[in-house]
């Protein structure tokens, strides 16, 4: 559980998930793993977009199927504002290829449900590396 690759003093993560129990667990796991990161969470796309506009997070982790505004719609809106933010989509494995979900906006990582937290962490690490290179 090293976080030695943490280059910046502060990394901001936005977590969007409509299922409260999942949202809570994920938030706990992420904050325990990355205690220094700033973590914001929302339970629908619209709230997530608002938080994005407010905090401009480096990494957005979002579910796809959500009420009010779906993850796809939210990502589309985010991309209109920023193309620098890294986006990790958590998708239910409906058998459909992930590209279908990715029509349009660039998605950096797809994580299939049920979530393997190690895989999610790897994705986050990659995003952090990319962010570092891009700076």
């Amino acid at each position, binding site marked *: *559980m090293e976080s030695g690759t943490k280059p910046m003093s502060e990394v901001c993560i936005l977590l969007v998930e409509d*299922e409260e*129990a*999942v949202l809570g*667990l*994920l938030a*706990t*796991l992420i904050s*325990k*793993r990355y205690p220094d990161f700033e973590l914001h969470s929302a339970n629908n796309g619209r709230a997530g977009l608002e938080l994005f506009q407010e905090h401009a997070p480096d990494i957005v982790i979002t579910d796809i*199927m959500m*009420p009010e505004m*779906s993850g796809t719609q939210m990502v589309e809106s985010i991309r209109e504002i920023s193309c620098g933010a890294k986006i990790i989509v958590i998708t*239910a*494995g*409906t058998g459909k290829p992930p590209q279908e979900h990715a029509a349009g906006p660039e998605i950096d990582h797809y994580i299939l*449900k*049920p*979530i*393997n*937290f*190690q895989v999610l962490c790897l994705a986050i690490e990659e995003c952090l590396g990319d962010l570092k290179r891009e700076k």
Partner: protein
Amino acid sequence: MRKGTGSPTDRKGLRILAEERLRLETNGTAPPLPAEEPLRLIHELQVHQIELEMQNEELTRERDAWQKMEALLGKYSDLYDLAPVGYFNLDRAGVIRAVNLTGTGFLGVVRSLLINQPLAIFIADDSRTIFHDFLHRVFTSRVKETCELAFSQDRLPPLFVQVEAVVSESGEECRAAVIDITLRKRAEEANVRLAALVESSDDAIIAESLNGSIFSWNSGSERMFGYRTDEVMGKQIALLFPPERRDEEERILSRLSSGARIEPFETVRLAKDGRRVEVSVTVSAIRDGAGRIVGASKIVRDISERKRKDEALHDMNSNLERRVAERTEELAGTINNLRNEIVERGKAEEGLRRLNRLHAVLTETNQAIVRTKDRDALFKEFCTIAVRDGSFKLAWVGLVDHDSGALKIVAADGAAGFLEEIKVSAGEELARCGMTEISVHEGTYYICNDFLNSPVTRLWHERGRTHGIRASASIALKQEGRVIGALTLYAGKKDFFDRYQVDLLRQMGADISFALDNFQRETGRKEVERALYEQTVERLLVVEALREKEQMLIQQSRLAAMGEMIGNIAHQWRQPLNLLGLTAQQLLQYYDLGEFDRAFLVENLDKEMGLIQHMSRTIDDFINYFKPDKEKTDFKVQEVISKTLLLLKGGLRNPKITVETVVQGDPSVHGYPNEFAQVLLNLIVNAKDVLTERKIKGPRMTITTSSADGCAVVTVADNGGGVPEEIIDKIFDPYFTTKGPQQGTGIGLFMSKAIIEKNMAGRLTVSNTADGAEFRIEVCHGIGD
């Protein structure tokens, strides 16, 4: 006894008589001395004594008279009872008041039962009217009346009686004397019958006395001799005899008198008009009551006719004999002629036999035509028949070869050697064969009746001689009007083929040609049949393919249903699985952070077990949901809707479809809840598919439950734009689908309709609303089972 007043010997008279007698006895010496009392007393006593004596005398007299009367009465009673006449005293109504013993005997009933009975009940039915008329006559005329009646007696023949009756002095009764006349009646009847017999006889029946005078003459006699009865009665029978036979009568009568029997004899008699009548006579004696012969009866039969017939017969016989003799001579001549004819006929018959043989060949050939299946077999049969049944020396069939135009033997039978040689010279040689060539060329026939001398057959003269061939015939064979060959026959006799034979041969040629045409047609027919068969097989294959496709569709529908279910389970499980995964992964993280303790582990496991239980329940729900219903039950429609929506919850989330449930009543239905749920599932999934496929903005579904007129009504409406009008009539047909091949089977709505309408006697209909389709389920309470 009878001594009262009115009697000549009354008391006063008696006194006078007694005094008179006393005076006579005392000779007048008894002086009346009135003064002297004793004397007067003596006188009185004497008178009294005499009085008593006189009374005694009278009594004795009366007693004697009584005794006489008694005896008389007994005599008359016997007379009355035993008289051969029955006596009846009848009143006006015919009721029996008295009857004697003979009378009771007539009726066969004892006297005590007869008295006061109406006599009529003993009278035979047909005599009763006579009796009543008679009784009436008796009481009106008051003189003696007579009638004849019959008494009916139980189980006995009727008793015929003559009744004489007269009214008695009182006028209230009549005395009837009844005499049994049954015997007389019988005799009368017999006489009547006999007389009728005699009268109706065709024979003359004549009775004569012994002196020869006629006393009976029947109508047969009148017809035979012409004399009326009044003309001959009392006349001598001799008037019927011809002069030369006058003595016959004397002989007859003398023989009869002697008691000898006279055999019937034939003689001649004279009729009134002088005509002689030939007769046969039967004579018998007439006897009186004492058995003395008093006359003769003769039965005379006219035998003139018989005599005439006998003579005619005799004439006929002699005539016949003469004619037979004549005829015999004629016959002898005829027989000679016949013998000559027979010889001629024999010659004709030989021709006929040949003809018959050929006819047999024709018949056999015709049967062979029916029997054989193809051309070559028919030709072989024909050759065999010609030799076997037609006694031809040789028969063969040749066909024109397509390429060379020559004749080729296809069948042959008979004189083998002749054929061998022909075979050697095959084709071209045969083409030169005179007669067969001619018949083929002409398309008819050719006859050679002198095989060994005809120029046409000169090439074969030698061979013909060797094989005993003397005549031959060749007939062309045709198929569909075209000459294809010929059949040729060889006979062992010169002039074998006459006009009739030729006719038959031509007939045979025509029959075989007809058969050939038939074979041709048969071949055509078989081809058509084969084509038909192939078509049928093809059609069967198509049907089979269709069935396979159908099976595939059903299979697909099953797979689709299963996929649908698995999809829903996946939806239901995805979330808890995700949670479960994350919860489990927490353990390691907490452990790594050193925050892992028992309390944390218990809390974590509780969460995990809760999730596992939830997932387990989800599977149970699905299993129960899809489990076939065993029997009908009452279920709440709303509960089934809720359960279905719960199962579909995950499936309706992407895209997010708003499902509104409107509850306007809480109806129950008697039926199969899971089948009902399946219908709901179909309708909801259909709506979802339409909404998804048409990418409807703000997809919405409204499920309404209500009760109307005792029926449960559930509508599933969407805002998907509705069912196109051109297919709205077909959407419940099996295999009708608007979806792509991967998605739809076309079975869902068909099955749904079947479930609602067949299993629950309800109705499933569809209609379009302003912005979509509305499916309507109606199931009426209580009708469900």
